[in-house]
């Protein structure tokens, strides 16, 4: 049916359309190993005195771990642009919540009132 094929055509040109990508056990294994490794590192790092950087390091490691999970376990690396944008939108709003609230808490002591 011509209408059907026409529909198919348009669907196919959707930029978010993509081929299914199967991630295999090898990748999962590697990621699993990395995650365990980073867990060990973050525990170890917390026993080293790095002044203000302890928190930074801990968060950085947590972020790396989260990104690994998101990209590979959750297949975002192989997903459509739409999925990537969705994830980004979530973190963006989260950052807005934190930073805009912080503008208040950080600057409360400024000035003299």
């Amino acid at each position: 049916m011509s209408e059907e094929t026409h529909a198919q055509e348009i669907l196919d040109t959707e930029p978010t359309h993509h081929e299914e990508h199967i991630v295999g056990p090898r990748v999962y294994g590697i990621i699993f190993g990395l995650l365990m490794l980073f867990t060990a590192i973050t525990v170890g790092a917390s026993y080293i005195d790095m002044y203000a950087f302890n928190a930074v390091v801990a968060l950085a490691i947590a972020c790396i771990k989260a990104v690994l999970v998101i990209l590979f376990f959750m297949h975002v690396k192989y997903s459509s642009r739409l999925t990537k944008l969705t994830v980004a939108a979530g973190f963006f709003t989260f950052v807005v919540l934190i930073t805009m609230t912080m503008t208040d808490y950080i600057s409360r002591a400024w000035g003299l009132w």
Partner: protein
Amino acid sequence: MSTIVMLPDQQTASLPKRSYLNEEYGLKSWLLTGDHKRIAILYLISITIFFFIGGFFAGMIRLELLTPPSDLMAADTYNKMFTMHGIIMVFLFLVPSVPATIGNFLIPIMVGAKDLAFPKINLLSWYLYVLGGILVLAALTLGGVDTGWTFTTPLSTHYLNTHVITAGLAIFVAGFSSIFTGLNFIVTIHRMRAPGMTWFRLPLFVWSHYAASVLMVLGTPVLAITLVLVILERVIGIGVFDPAKGGDPLLFQHLFWFYSHPAVYIMILPGFGVISEVISTFSRKRVFGYTAVAFSSVAIAVFGFFVWAHHMFIMGVSNYSALVFSLLTMLVAVPSAIKIFNWSFTLYKGSITFETPMLYAFGFIGLFTIGGLTGVFLGSMGMDIHLTETYFIVAHFHFVMVGGMLMAFLAGIHFWWPKMTGRMYPEGISKLAALTTFIGFNLTFFPQFILGYLGMPRRYAAYPPEFQVLNVLSTAGATVLGVGYVLPLLYLAWSLKYGKIAGSNPWQATGLEWQIQSPPLTTNFVETPVVDYEAYDYEWLANKTKHEVQTVG
């Protein structure tokens, strides 16, 4: 190019034999339906009930305020009145008003889909809404809540012995209903568009719902967790917001308004969508500057997340932070201005008729502009110091919410009534109702601006006698307004049986929804439509109609 169109002959038209209304019968076929149109009707009925419950409380508020002392009811009763009024109107009426009814009904049709992406979740969302409603009613019958709709801590957590937890749960549950509606819309708009329905062929109604849905999905969870914390603090006394335990009550304000400011845009954006459709249809013109109107919705959604602390200017946020939030508030007002002017210019060189939806839309433009501009008063920090927590605010938000969104809701209901039911509403009396609401509204809420500047605080059961004159005006207006709202209820019910048969496209509008029978089939379309024209393309419609007249007639 001529865009004159002939209306189909109304007298000879008959209701289609099959439609979503008569596909199945029985209560069960409604309560277990997955059909977005039936769910929309379920929503329509339930929000109407809650609107009138909320309206009843408004009536009691206005009656009490007729005289300066709190003589009609005790102060705590009054406090319960406005709390229930606020909670019901915001969470059980205005947030779901346009999206869950009109949006639910139309978005799948407008994008050319058979249903929303997740019909079951859509039904679940209605059940959650009902559960939320029941919890509110439970809180009400158990003895009421008197926190105000804003749940300010530590008042709500430690100093009241009313049913705060029940009400909190109610809003938590209703919030998830709204999250699911938004989620469904976003997915549908992204994934279910018919072939040829590109983003820039979408009606502006869809764009504005898309923007509102983003706000629902991203904002509401923060309200949910905030309420969870409030409930935990009340039940077991954890110390997150309690200053006695080292918590910061302002943090509650931050989290609450992080949702509730975007929520006001959840409440208005779908209304914007309705107005775009109505204005375009009755001036028979493409919306002036389609892209600008579409993107201003998105801009409102994005910037809506950056301005919440303007509700906290005097509450002890840092002055510098207030500065930033005030600046952003001014920025977020601009897209609304763009819309207003674009709509005005849509009329330019149109061919305008003045059916009821159009009258409501005019009412919307005027009242929302006043409401919005007074929002700018409040966003201007120095002015806000004097105006905040007075009747000026009450007037501001009733102008945007009632004068704006409620008018838009009524415009939409009248506009799509023929599509939903297959029958026309009676034109004469509905024009009268539109006029009544407009007059009643101004009489009710305009005096409140003056009261506010005079300094009358909101949430006051008793007030100094010198404010009485204006309050009497306001109460008188509310009575007129109440009549204006009861009228549509009556004549719309009447029209279900006695209204004229509408035919598929009584307004000769261009949207996809008007190209199918009314009321539509359960599957909306007989076959998946292929869209090859822009939104609001009246020339396409004229040609199509000509063509149709030749072949069918």
